[in-house]
Every structure is written in C-alpha cells, then in structure tokens.
C-alpha cells in the first residue's frame, strides 16, 4: 500500500507520476533553461530530478548520523561516503508503477532518494528508522524492512546475498506469468563473497531470469583485498554467463544509462545482467551540480533553491517522524503466521494446571 500522497497512477509508468515525486512542482522550472550555453548532452528534467534525489539522500543520511549519535537509531548503516549514485541511479533507471505492475527494486543502504522513488516519503523514512510506527512492516523496523509490492520495493534483509536468490526467483516468477518485469538488486562489494549471492546467481543465470545485479564496488583496492584479489567485479560475470555494464559511481547519469541498458536487455530475455558501479573520490552530488550549471540546465540560484527546499523538507519530515509515537506492543506483534491470533506468551501456566488434589 502506498503512502497517502500517491494517488492514482498510470500502469507501467516510465517514472512515478508527479504526485509521487518527492517535491513535485517545487524547484526550478525545466521549461526555461538558461540559453547562452550549448544544449546539454543529457535530459535536463531527468538531471534535475536526479539531483534532488541525490541531495535528499545525502541530507537524510546526515540526519540519520545525528540520530545515531543521539542513540535514537541503533542500526544506522555506517557506510563509506559518496555512494548515493548507485541506488538512486538504479531506482531511477527502471520502470516504476504504483499498482504492482512495475519493476522490483532491492537496494541496500544509503538509499533515501531511491526509496522515495518507490513511494517512501521522507517522513516515513525517518519513522522507519526511529521505529515510529508506519507502513506494513510488522516490526516497524527501519529502512531495512520496508517492503511494498505495489510500488515494487523490496528493501533488504540484513544477511548479505540473500536478495539475489529472492529477487532472482521473483523475476523467474513474473516471467512465468508472462509479465515483462525486471528485478534489480543493489549490493555492496562484500556481498559477492557470500554463498547466497553465488547460489542465487547460478540459479538465475541458468534460468535466464530477468535480473539485474548492481555491484557497488569501492575504488580502493586495499579495502577490496580481503574479499577478493580482483580489481573489477565484472571479472566474475563470465563465470556465470552474465551480460555486463560498468559505470562510474561519481556520475549518476552514467549509472542511470548503464542500468537502463542492462534492464532492457534483461527484459528482452537476454538473461541476468551485472552492472558494476565503481566508486572513486568523486562526489556525485557536486559533479551533477556542476554539470547542470555548466549546461545551463538550471541557474545557480535555482539549484540553491532546490537544495534549500530539500533540506527544509527533510527537517520537516524528521520533525514529524520524531513526534510520532512508537508502536503499541501487542498489536504489532501479530503476523508471525498468516492465521495467528495475537499470541504473546512469555509466561504460560495451563489454565487447569493449578493444584487439583
């Protein structure tokens, strides 16, 4: 089920309807680019939307860090910085819908902007982390457990690699049903070491399931060394018979393009695709900003206004999330079994177990 702002939406929309976009109507108007510059080699609308999402991701993450310092969020993912482009670009690249007919997306962390594309508003994002009740997750827990089959969001379980198995199976399932949908899993480099990643991939590859695997690779060889002696994770692809793409993680437009190519190949029946997103020291947010300004896709003051808007919406969302209360215990403990009543038993004494003699 979608958050209330979602409204009705067309099926198989290439992007979410404006009403679901984080800040529909705000920010600079793309119809009026500054003119003395040459036409940009990218879609200005898309670039601005992506810029908002990257900014949102970063703003949300830095507030999450504060909440973690305050001890209010325990499981805030500590991740290397500058990694927004992988999840945001991947989420942006694929076919989204709000009625359960679009592609399915399974990010790891650092994905506030990506989650947003799949219907998780910023307030909900913080409520999840604060475990202030919202949404369908019974345990009301964290970004990690946000699942929405209507928008196509399957946020991860923590044990790494498992989602390759699951999303691969989902992709097999929708193909069996004759639907042209693609599953996308974003995973950090470490996940490639897991047996789950391997087994999931072996099976998906054997079935030619429409699965796209985004591997978010750190640039530093040192950090990678303990996991593999490779410098490129794409070297793993031939061993499974996968198609590949590579993209610079500092360049969100490149990520979008790579994931688009990969997902359309998967959709066309060419089997599992791997996209290696290679991160460096480049800041994807700054880089896109520069590119937008250089191409005069927006003016500096327009971009500044957009940023200010993101920041204030983030602050408002967090404030609302903070003031929302925690869930009530017995009610939210249901859901272990489909048919289960609300059984919450820490002590139990059989009703007639009292002394009868």
């Amino acid at each position, binding site marked *: 089920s979608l958050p209330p702002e979602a409204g009705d939406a067309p099926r198989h929309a290439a992007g979410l309807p404006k009403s679901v976009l984080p800040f529909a109507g705000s920010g600079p108007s793309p119809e009026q680019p500054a003119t003395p510059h040459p036409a940009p080699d990218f879609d200005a609308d898309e670039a601005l939307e992506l810029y908002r999402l990257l900014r949102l991701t970063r703003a949300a993450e830095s507030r999450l860090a504060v909440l973690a310092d305050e001890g209010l969020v325990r499981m805030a993912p500590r991740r290397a910085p500058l990694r927004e482009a992988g999840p945001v670009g991947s989420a942006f690249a694929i076919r989204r819908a709000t009625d359960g007919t679009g592609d399915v997306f399974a990010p790891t962390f650092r994905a506030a902007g990506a989650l947003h594309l799949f219907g998780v508003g910023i307030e909900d994002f913080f409520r999840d982390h604060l475990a202030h009740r919202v*949404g*369908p*997750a*019974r*345990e009301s*827990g964290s970004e990690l*457990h*946000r*699942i929405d*089959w209507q928008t196509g969001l*399957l946020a991860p*379980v*923590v*044990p790494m690699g*498992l989602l*390759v*198995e*699951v*999303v*691969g*199976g*989902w*992709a*097999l*399932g*929708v193909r*069996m*049903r004759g639907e042209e949908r693609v*599953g996308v899993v974003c995973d950090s480099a470490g996940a490639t070491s897991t*047996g*789950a990643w*391997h*087994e*999931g*991939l*072996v*099976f*998906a590859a*054997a*079935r030619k*399931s429409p699965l796209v695997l985004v591997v978010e690779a750190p640039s530093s060889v040192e950090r990678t060394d303990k996991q593999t002696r490779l410098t490129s994770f794409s070297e793993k692809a031939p061993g499974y018979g996968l198609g590949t793409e590579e993209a610079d993680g500092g360049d969100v437009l490149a990520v979008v393009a790579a994931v688009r190519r990969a997902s359309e190949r998967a959709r066309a029946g060419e089997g599992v695709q791997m996209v290696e997103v290679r991160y460096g020291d480049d800041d994807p947010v700054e880089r896109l900003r520069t590119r937008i300004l250089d191409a005069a896709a927006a003016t500096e003051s327009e971009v500044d206004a957009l940023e200010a808007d993101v920041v204030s919406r983030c602050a408002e969302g967090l404030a609302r999330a903070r003031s929302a209360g925690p869930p009530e215990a017995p009610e939210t403990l249901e*859901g*272990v*079994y*489909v*048919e289960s009543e609300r059984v919450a038993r820490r002590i*139990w*004494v*059989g*009703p*007639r*177990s*009292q*002394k*009868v*003699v």
Partner: protein
Amino acid sequence: MTEQAVPEHLTKTRNGEPVTLLEAVSEALFEEMTRDESVFLLGEDIGVYGGAFKVTRGFLEHFGAARVIDTPIAEGGFTGAAAGAAHAGLRPVVEIQFMDFISPAYDVITNYIATSLYRGAGPMPLVIRGPVGGGNRGGPFHSQNVEMAFFHTPGLKIVYPSTAYDAKGLLKAAIRDDNPVLFEEHKGLYRAPALREVLPDEDYIVPLGVARTVREGDALTIVTYGAMVHKSVEAAERMEKEDGVSVEIIDLRTLLPMDDDAIVESVKKTGRLLIVHEDTRTGGIAGEIAMRVSESAFEWLDAPMLRVTAIDAPVPYSGSLEDYFLPQTDDIVEAARYLAGY
C-alpha cells in the same frame, strides 16, 4: 494446462488401487499442480530423471519444463528463488533431494522465508519437501531428520506424515497454506508394503496442526510421529498381548504448530507420557512436549515423562551400528512397561 492424459502410474487412486506413501505424495503433487496453475516444482534431478526417489516421474512430460524445474546443486539458491516466486504470486514446491542437504538453505529459510510475513513482505506459500530418516544404511548424510533445525523458528510449519492417507492430505493442505511449510517424508515409509492403502478418490485434505489418535488406550500415552508411529503400534500391540495393557498413541502429524490439546487431553486420561522420536536425543522435540505437558497437565502426571530416541551421535553408516543407534520396538516396550508399571 494441457488436457493431456494422467500418466498411468498416477491413476491408482482413481482406479481404486492401493498406493504407497510415495505414490500418495506423487498424487498430491500431481493433483495440486492440476488444480492450480500457480503450483510449480523445483529441485535437483526432478525433471528429466524424475527425482532421486522418482516422486515426480512423468511430471516433466505432463506439465512441461516451466513448471518442473531441474535446478543446479544450490539448495540455498533455489529455495531462495522459490521464496521470490512466492512473492510473485506463485506457489512453489521445492524438493530437497535428501533433506540432509537442506543445510545450505538454512540461512534463507530461517532469516528470509520464515520472517517474510512478519517483515511485511506478505504471505509465503512455499513448501519444502524431501526424504528424511534412517534405517536405510545411508550413513550420516543421507539419513538425517531435520525437524529440530527448524522447530525453533517462528513462522515455519513442519509436517511429518506417517501414512499414505495423511501424506497426501497433509501435502495438499501444505501447498494450499499461505505459510512456509517444511514437509518431511520418511524414506523407510516411502515404499513400505504395509503402508499401502486405498485412498478416497476425491479432493481431500488433512488439516495442518491436528494430531491423530492412532489407537486408544488408558495405561499410557505415546506421543510420536513419522516412522516411529509404526514401531510404537508394534510395541503397543505386543503389550496388549503380553501384558494386557492398552496404550494410547498420538501421531502428531504436524510438529509445528503442535496440537497441544490432543496431547494434553490424552495425558489427562492416562496420567503417563512416553515420547518416541527417531531423531537424536538432546534437543529433540520430546523436550518441548514434556515442557508443555508440565505447563498444562502436571497434576495429572502419575509417572515421569520419558522418551525413547536415537542416540546422540551422527547417523552411522554400518547396519549394525545404525540399528543400535535408532530407537527400536524393544526400547519402546521397555520404556512403556516401566511407565505402565510405575
């Protein structure tokens, strides 16, 4: 679905002929796949080869390769994929070639599949079935009972039939259940001639979570399941004859959730409880049963709750050792006599 004829060997019930437990399993799968297009099968060598025990012989030809999927040797991978397919609205039935090999899928079953509903991912209509149990000289990796690896995991159901009738009805119920179900089939019962029976030629199910009273008695209650149901019956018959004592036997059928009422009512009647399981001793299911009876019927107990189980060791390969390792009818008689005379 094609309107192809039902393969000859799957028409026994239709023809009023008796079936083995294995054939009952095959019929259940066949009927559910026929009834519901969303049911499909995955497993090692289940297609071309028809399965290590031939449970799915003829299925590939009848239902096609899209619904009878031969998998690589990656139990975690294809069990996890089955979970994904369940998310996509299908009802997968996974065969683990020998249930011993479920261990690579332990991670995805306990962390993903069992928690799916709770985490908001929705129901998980998934059955994981396969052969279990000892007595076949299969050694430590082709003889395990796996219920206790999963019994502690909230969100799962565990079924372990002892008769052809139950196997068919329980498996059909499991496939229709919206929770993930682990379904254990004892190899020693698969083709046991004594278990052949004529099944009703109708679409029946046996509901999950309901035990069966195998025989009534008043001297003591034996709670058991799977292959041990039959050894317990042997023991009870011997005691009836030799001691003139009548033993009540409860076949759990579903281990999780457990039918507490059936157990407790029986113990209240007999005052004595013996639990018999083929699985090894420490941490076996006997403990949970004893705990629940203590919680609910302590005052009715006239004797200690006891258990007869396999020995705490891996399953030996050698026949002489395996016989020694497994609980035998004599053991059940010995323990039951002790209790009856207590």
